[in-house]
């Protein structure tokens, strides 16, 4: 009799283990640029190497290209990811326009998304299911204003910004901060997202005519790289300070040295003594020869953060959100490669900015 009971128990255990092995992977959606995807993938690989989350493997579901930066595709990607019940959370999108547009879908359908690099002030009020890894541009504007005003004068400040949710809002905030400091911009120009400045010579002529001493670049690196050569020749003493949107692998590679000397806002501390950052950098470089950017670290941290939430709260979307909302309050701060992560009541982390000068290649 006892033999039969033992056999029965053993069979039940085997069945349970088999069921566990056949459990579907935990899926995390990713809507990022290539750099962000690399960081997310690194996190996924490390998680799976260490046994997954609660014994379950983790998988990424990567959205179509363009969804990370464009609003239209971002809406479609959000709709698709929210409909997939296996997706427990989303890391994305890359820029503020895409994140803002998609945030309403995520919030309406109750799926957490963590935007690693979106800094638009409007994202703070996007909803309880929206989190981000960087502070609001309200803080960056102050930082930029302080940065541009530091050093000896005169301070004839020009601004060129990408005319989207990111650049438009950042420029507005910067201008407000400069106004608080008694400074008005001597020149400003705007360009469209994903388009080059159509008439760079006119822009440079405008900068020259305005006698700008400082240029606040509130945009992307390709467009800056396209004009820095001319800028240096026309305005050799021009001090260029770029916002965080400029920092990417391309900028850090600094092919041709176009961006040499440009100071860029970085979310990562240049201090290489940060163990987590150094470790991640080392691991990343082991898998890729691309420059290690803030987006990589922030995407990596976002995935690890989601993994922590799922490990603690399970795969229920609502419980994942509740966990993330309590990071830094009810739950310990997340020690990430980008630093300690704590969310306030709006899902915003504590803002941390560093000004990094792009070195010569």
């Amino acid at each position, binding site marked *: 009799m006892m033999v039969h009971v033992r056999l029965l128990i053993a069979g039940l255990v085997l069945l349970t283990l088999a069921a566990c092995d056949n459990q579907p992977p935990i899926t995390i959606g990713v809507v990022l640029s290539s750099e962000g995807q690399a960081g997310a993938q690194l996190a996924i690989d490390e998680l799976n190497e260490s046994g997954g989350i609660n014994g379950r493997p983790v998988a990424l579901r990567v959205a179509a290209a363009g969804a990370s930066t464009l609003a239209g595709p971002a809406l479609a990607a959000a709709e698709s990811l929210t409909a997939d019940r296996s997706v427990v959370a989303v890391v994305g999108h890359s820029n503020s326009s895409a994140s803002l547009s998609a945030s309403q879908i995520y919030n309406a359908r109750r799926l957490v998304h963590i935007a690693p690099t979106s800094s638009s002030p*409007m994202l703070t009020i996007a909803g309880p299911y929206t989190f981000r890894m960087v502070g609001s541009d309200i803080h960056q504007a102050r930082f930029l204003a302080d940065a541009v005003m530091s050093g000896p004068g005169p301070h004839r400040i020009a601004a060129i910004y990408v005319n989207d*949710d990111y650049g438009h809002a950042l420029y507005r905030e910067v201008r407000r901060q400069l106004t608080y400091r008694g400074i008005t911009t001597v020149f400003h120009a*705007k360009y469209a997202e994903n388009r080059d400045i159509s008439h760079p010579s006119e822009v440079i002529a405008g900068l020259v005519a305005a006698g700008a001493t400082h240029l606040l670049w509130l945009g992307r690196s390709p467009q800056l790289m396209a004009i820095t050569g001319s800028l240096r020749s026309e305005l050799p003493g021009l001090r260029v300070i770029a916002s965080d949107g400029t920092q990417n692998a391309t900028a850090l590679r600094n092919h041709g040295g176009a961006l040499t000397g440009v100071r860029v806002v970085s979310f990562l501390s240049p201090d290489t003594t940060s163990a987590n950052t150094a470790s991640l950098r080392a691991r990343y470089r082991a898998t890729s020869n691309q420059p290690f950017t803030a987006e990589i670290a922030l995407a990596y941290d976002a995935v690890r953060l989601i993994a922590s939430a799922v490990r603690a709260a399970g795969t229920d979307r609502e419980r994942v959100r509740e966990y993330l909302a309590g990071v830094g309050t009810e739950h310990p701060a997340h020690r990430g490669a980008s630093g300690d992560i704590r969310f306030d009541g709006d899902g915003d982390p504590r803002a941390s900015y560093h000004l990094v000068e792009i070195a010569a290649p």
Partner: protein
Amino acid sequence: MPRSPNPRVSLRRLLVGGALAMATVAAVVMVISATYLVSLQRDADRDVRAGLVEQETADDIVAAVYGQIMASYRQLQMPSTANMERFDSLGSTAFDHLRGYLFQDMSMAARRQVEAIRELHQSLEVDAYDAFEHAKGGHQSRAHAGVVQLELRANELETSVDGFMELRDRDRAARRDHQAAIRWRVVVGVALVTVSLIVVTLLFIRLLQRHVVNPLDQLQSTAMEFGRGNLSVRVPKQRHEEMNNVSLSFNVMAARMQQAHHQIELQNVELNGALAGLKDAQQELVQQEKLSAIGLMLAGLAHELNNPLAGILGAAQCLRGELQEHADPGVRRLGDDLVDPLVTQARRAGELVRNLLLFSRKSDAERETVNIKTALDVAVGLRGYAFAQAGKDLILEVAEDLFIEVEAQRFEHVAMNLMTNALDAMVSGGGTRLLVRGIALRDRVVLTFEDDGPGFTEPERIFDPFYTTKPVGTGTGLGLTLVHRFVTEVEGSIAAGTSSLGGARIAIVLHAAEAPPPALAVTGEHRATFAIAQGLPSPGRSRVLVVDDEPALREVQRRILTRLGHDVTLACDGAEAVSILEADEFDIVITDIRMPGALDGVGVYRWIQAHRPSLADRCLFITGDIVHSVAGGSLDIPAERVLAKPFDVHEYGALVTDMLAEGLCSPSIASVS
């Protein structure tokens, strides 16, 4: 049925309350639904207002964009910081408005449309700036071309905005339709719920009414009917088990109660019969007790009357004797004229007293041979005066030798009742005489009481208990009933009808009895003159002791005995008599029976029996109440030795002489008890 002091909530009230509760629920549902509908309407109104606001916003966007176009034109014509600021300001307005849609609830298509408009606007602004730069660089044609492009973009943007608004309108229309559908569904649902509630309530009420309330009403009415005395009523069979069980239980209980009631009724009838019998017996007992009381009273009265009567009669007779021996014929005539009537009246009074005593004598429930004539004489003696007073005749035509075996006293009562009834009828209704006849008819004796009075109006009812034609308070209605009972008990027959004289007739037929031996009749008559008629010689001078508490009687006896030549010694009570007897010898003792003191005549006789046994046979007893003379004990003495007061002097003397002479004969012994 009386209401209980704490009336319970009736089922009907519960039903009504339930219906009201249902109605309240329905009303609450309706109110809630109405509130929801109102809120839906408010949402719809809000939507409409939001639509209007959106339209305004859209108009503002378009206006801002076109404002930017205008500013662009001005900037190209007259570049200035103000124009640029105006352009930027309008651009910010449009940007803010467009981003204002971000947090609104809209369809995916609308969102995509907004993003497209926004991107369009952003491109428009960049293009404007390019145009401005062209203008600054002196490239006017490029600048104008840029502005024309701006116009196209503005138109495109306006079209996109219109398209967006259409989408929004469509969304709102869809929402309105959806809300309208919801409202309709709510209204229909509420109506259905309300109607269903009402129908269910009514059905429930009807169901309860049919299956609970009605059966309960039926049970109640049946119970009330049962309570009113209709014990045969039952609850009909019910449809449902529970109610049927209640009905069955009630019916079983009712059947048992009916049976018990029937038993009780039967017992009641028996009890009533027994009670009637008891009442009759009580009436009879009361009557007998009354009679007994009267009898006792009469006995006492008779005794008290007999003594003086004896004195009067004795003295009168002695006087008569003295006057008869007077030489003067005139004196002798005095005896005839004056003393004889005295003697007659005294005898008459004594006879009356004796009849009263006989009438009052308790029935000893033993039948005895009774002479009808003698018994009727007693009744005549008691009722004759009343007839005489009323001027009616009471005539007896009864043979002397008719005997019956009955309780003498009761027979006398029967005769008294019949005579009294006849007299009362004649007094109230007319008539002059009652004729009482008695004849022998083979082994029967037939007695008839006939009068010429008004007769019987309901002869078949006259023997019924309590039936009377007399005025209230003058009769119990039991007289003839007792007559009937007496006749029935002696196995006789009685019939009532109309007399040949025109009045009432009652005929009684009884079994005839043989005549008793001629020696003795219980009425106390004794042949005191027997010895005188036989001519026995006088015993000579004897010593006689007379014991009597009445001085007059002592004197009369002394005179009588002295005339007979005896020596008389007188004693006034038993104690004196005993003391005399102790001291002296006597030949005969004549003693009254009832005397005051510790020793009465019986006591003296006992003493004689104990101390002078030879004298016991020579004791003569005199009593005023021959019937009730001795209380307790019995004295075995011949009846001849008992003389009733008032006595005849001759009878007295003859009895004394007989006793003193040898050869005294006394065939029966009267037991005086």
